[in-house]
């Protein structure tokens, strides 16, 4: 018979303190509160929090939790937008902030080995000094960790040309849910056997904890051009995106912002966007200097043919930075329009952008809501932001209904529930919109090969049948620091 919960928690605290020292183990109420949320609307307190300082300590912490039959949840920077690091089932939160060293950078072999708590931008900057880069650039890159990126298979504006996190991870050291340590993949391509790295990336912490990550690194591009195309009609901007892709041009980034975003950005940041535009496209091309002019010209003529009023090419690095500052600051700017927003993440085939944007506008009208759009258009990765006031219960309810309708529209167009933010707690009950019970069962079987007891980040990814009432809109969620952007 399992001893009462309080006993188990007490014993967990004792054994963690024995291994990590009291300094790195937290169980007071306010400490637990600090680890009860991420950037989503979900909230739940862990029983205990610990901050291990080595792989061995992570393994010991996992063993200690599992010995008491308690679940454990890995936590990076807590910028996840799907509730991934929120401990809904209680148990132990294992924070990886102290594992923040870049262990190795090998330029000749084009890889870097990092601990999971290394911040994405820190790695990129370390490489940048030497003319190299780490490609995936989630908009939260100033804060989010590579461990979190691996768990969520994160994307970013430049993933259009270069691929998402999964395409840049060669291997991972993992603490498995039984507390043993193993290595998936290698430092080179085509490691022997099944591609366990491939399935671990994107598993949202449900297969174990990454304690080292082997990242592929690349030479940074020789040249870059950034342009801004503005439109009187959103439709024309969406049509331009499809036309650019269809013409065989794969820009490094192709981002869209709609009218309300543009105006919010101009009011609060001043990036030089035309305030009377219904939409702008921020387009970047990279590569050998010789190819840039041609690419810029082709894109310009495609945009103009689709009704762009103006296409402006940044003629200095300062102007380029300013154009990007608008994009990067969009979320912070929007936060000033209404107390809160609900950020959705859906993907559609690129030829369906226009019809799904229309469906979003229809949902906004039907439910009397303001929905604004700033997103990775080139990938078909939508980010509608539904603005609301949590004090207004009726409006808050309509936000959830509209959100579901938007997700339905994405799925109906041949798309899916999430392009980069993950399923976590937010969308696990929608999983059966895209997968059959058998599909989900097969995924569960793979999970159980890693985690037979189901103690690694339980109740995530797979349907749990909770009401959305549990995703309470309280606390700090939905208002990330101003320096982050979606």
């Amino acid at each position, binding site marked *: 018979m399992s001893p009462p919960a309080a006993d188990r928690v007490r014993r967990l605290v004792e054994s963690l303190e024995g291994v990590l020292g009291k300094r790195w183990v937290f169980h007071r109420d306010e400490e637990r509160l600090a680890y009860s949320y991420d950037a989503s609307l979900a909230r739940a307190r862990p029983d205990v929090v610990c901050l291990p300082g080595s792989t061995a300590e992570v393994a010991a912490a996992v063993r200690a939790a599992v010995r008491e039959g308690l679940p454990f949840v890995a936590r990076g920077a807590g910028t996840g937008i799907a509730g991934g690091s929120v401990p809904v089932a209680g148990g132990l939160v294992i924070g990886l902030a102290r594992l923040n060293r870049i262990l190795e950078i*090998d330029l*000749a*072999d*084009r890889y870097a080995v990092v601990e999971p708590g290394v911040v994405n931008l820190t790695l990129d900057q370390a490489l940048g000094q030497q003319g190299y880069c780490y490609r995936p650039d989630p908009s939260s890159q100033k804060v989010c960790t590579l461990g979190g990126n691996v768990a969520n*298979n994160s994307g970013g504006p430049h993933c259009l040309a270069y*691929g*998402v996190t*999964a395409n840049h991870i060669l291997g991972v050291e993992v603490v498995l849910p039984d507390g043993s340590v*193993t*290595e*998936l993949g*290698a430092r*080179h*391509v*085509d*490691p*022997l*056997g*099944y*591609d*366990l790295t*491939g*399935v671990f990336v*994107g598993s949202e912490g449900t297969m174990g904890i990454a304690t080292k990550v082997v990242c592929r690194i690349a*030479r940074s591009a020789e040249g870059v051009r950034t342009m801004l195309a503005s439109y009187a009609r959103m439709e024309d901007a969406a049509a331009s995106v499809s036309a650019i892709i*269809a*013409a*065989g*041009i*794969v820009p490094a980034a192709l981002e869209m912002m709609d009218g309300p975003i543009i105006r919010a950005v101009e009011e609060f940041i001043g990036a030089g966007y035309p305030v009377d535009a219904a939409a702008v496209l921020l387009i970047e091309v990279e*590569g*050998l200097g*010789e*190819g840039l002019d*041609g690419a810029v010209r082709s894109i310009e003529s495609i945009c103009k043919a689709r009704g762009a009023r103006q296409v402006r090419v940044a003629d200095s690095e300062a102007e380029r930075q300013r154009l990007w500052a608008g994009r990067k600051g969009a979320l912070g700017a929007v936060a000033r329009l209404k107390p809160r927003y609900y950020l959705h993440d859906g*993907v559609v*085939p*690129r*030829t369906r952008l226009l019809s799904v944007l229309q469906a979003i506008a229809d949902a906004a009208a039907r439910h009397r809501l303001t929905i604004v759009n700033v997103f*990775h258009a080139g*990938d*078909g990765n939508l980010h509608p932001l539904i603005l609301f006031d949590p004090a207004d219960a009726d409006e808050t309810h309509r936000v959830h209904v509209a959100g579901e309708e938007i997700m339905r529209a994405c799925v109906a167009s*041949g*798309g*899916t529930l*999430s*392009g*980069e933010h993950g*399923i976590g707690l937010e969308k696990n009950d929608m999983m059966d919109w895209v*997968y*059959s019970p*058998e*599909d989900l*069962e*097969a*995924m569960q*079987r*793979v999970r*159980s*090969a890693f985690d037979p007891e189901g103690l690694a980040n339980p109740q995530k990814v797979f349907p749990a049948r909770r009401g959305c009432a549990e995703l309470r809109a309280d606390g700090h969620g939905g208002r990330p620091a101003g320096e982050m952007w979606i």
Partner: protein
Amino acid sequence: MSASELAPADLAQAARMAQEASVAGRALAPRGGNTRGWMGRPSRPDAVEISTRRLSGVVHYEPDDLTVTVQAGIGFHDLQRQLGAHGQWLPVNPPAAAGATIGGLLAANACGSLRGRFGAWRDLVLGMSVALSDGQVVKSGGRVVKNVTGYDVHKLHVGALGTLGLIGQASLKILPLPQERRIVLASFASTADAVHVACDIAGSRLEPAAVEILRGRTDDPFGLRLPSMRAGAPGEWALAAAVEAGACLAVRFAGAEPCCARGVRDVRALVAASGGAHFAELLAADCDAAWAALDDLPVGAGAVLRIAATPGTAARLVSEEVAGTGGRMVADVVSGVVHLLWDDAVGPEDMAGRVERLRSGLGQGASCVLLKAPPQVRERVDVWGPRPVSYPLMLAVKRALDPGNVWNPGRFVGEI
């Protein structure tokens, strides 16, 4: 192999066949174009082949989405033709692609030297439907280019050699055909010199489509059909001779014309500065022919060994002439994949010894797989080599997805 071959008309039927096999304790061996039957450990003698030849259609193709969904039995070249009609292509160049199916190439993880630039199968697969041995057809992923909805189970099937299920359908990322293609060939008296230049190019910002080093022993061993070999111009003959004596560097560019031209120019300068012996740039029809020849490794040879290592380790191996193991060699220095091709003249004892020596020299730093070898060699060495540290997890995955051990039992790493 067995006389009777199964050929399901759809994936549901394939799953039912697998379930029956599971109940009866039989083994099934998925079969595509049978161009790689030689891969892996031998099939169980009683395994019944299950062919994807009736699953050979395009399921969904909207060119402007730059994705395509196909049934696994579609021919690689057939698909490329269909995509080509819309100015698009699947940017992979597996060796020995003639007759191969998409499903078979995925299962074998047969990529090619373009992978460093355009990605390998694992990067291009967006989703899959698979028949499992419990009678279910399951899918993962989808047909959009970015997707974190559920686990990427499809990645497990890439390179699994059909040991987890029958790949029935796959969605793939595709690209517009490049505006221009160029090949530069340069010959070097010493392999080490060739490697040096190759590494400079691979580590540059030139964004080559592929950088390979070829070393052969006969005239035009790679069937490059160099113009020189046809025309017989004396200076250019020397190029062929140099390939024979030393090493040939082949650099490919694909993209906008000015970028290709720049690439060729810079490579020429690098070659000249390094004292490379001869240089040829292939244009137009010669380029197309040579491009195809470069794609197509002559795997007809007696044995093929594939080493995957970091680019630096691969370069070192190549400079050191792969520890004097002889034979022909094709090395992709961008991705770090080296193929060694030995003909039948090398006896099985000798061949097995070479493999063992290479493996013990490389240790954990590389994988060293005997893709193809005569039976007498396979009896002497494990074609896959030592089990990786995560082997217990691999076994657990196999047991989870194929508890009846129906799919290709024994052929994979560690006798999975």
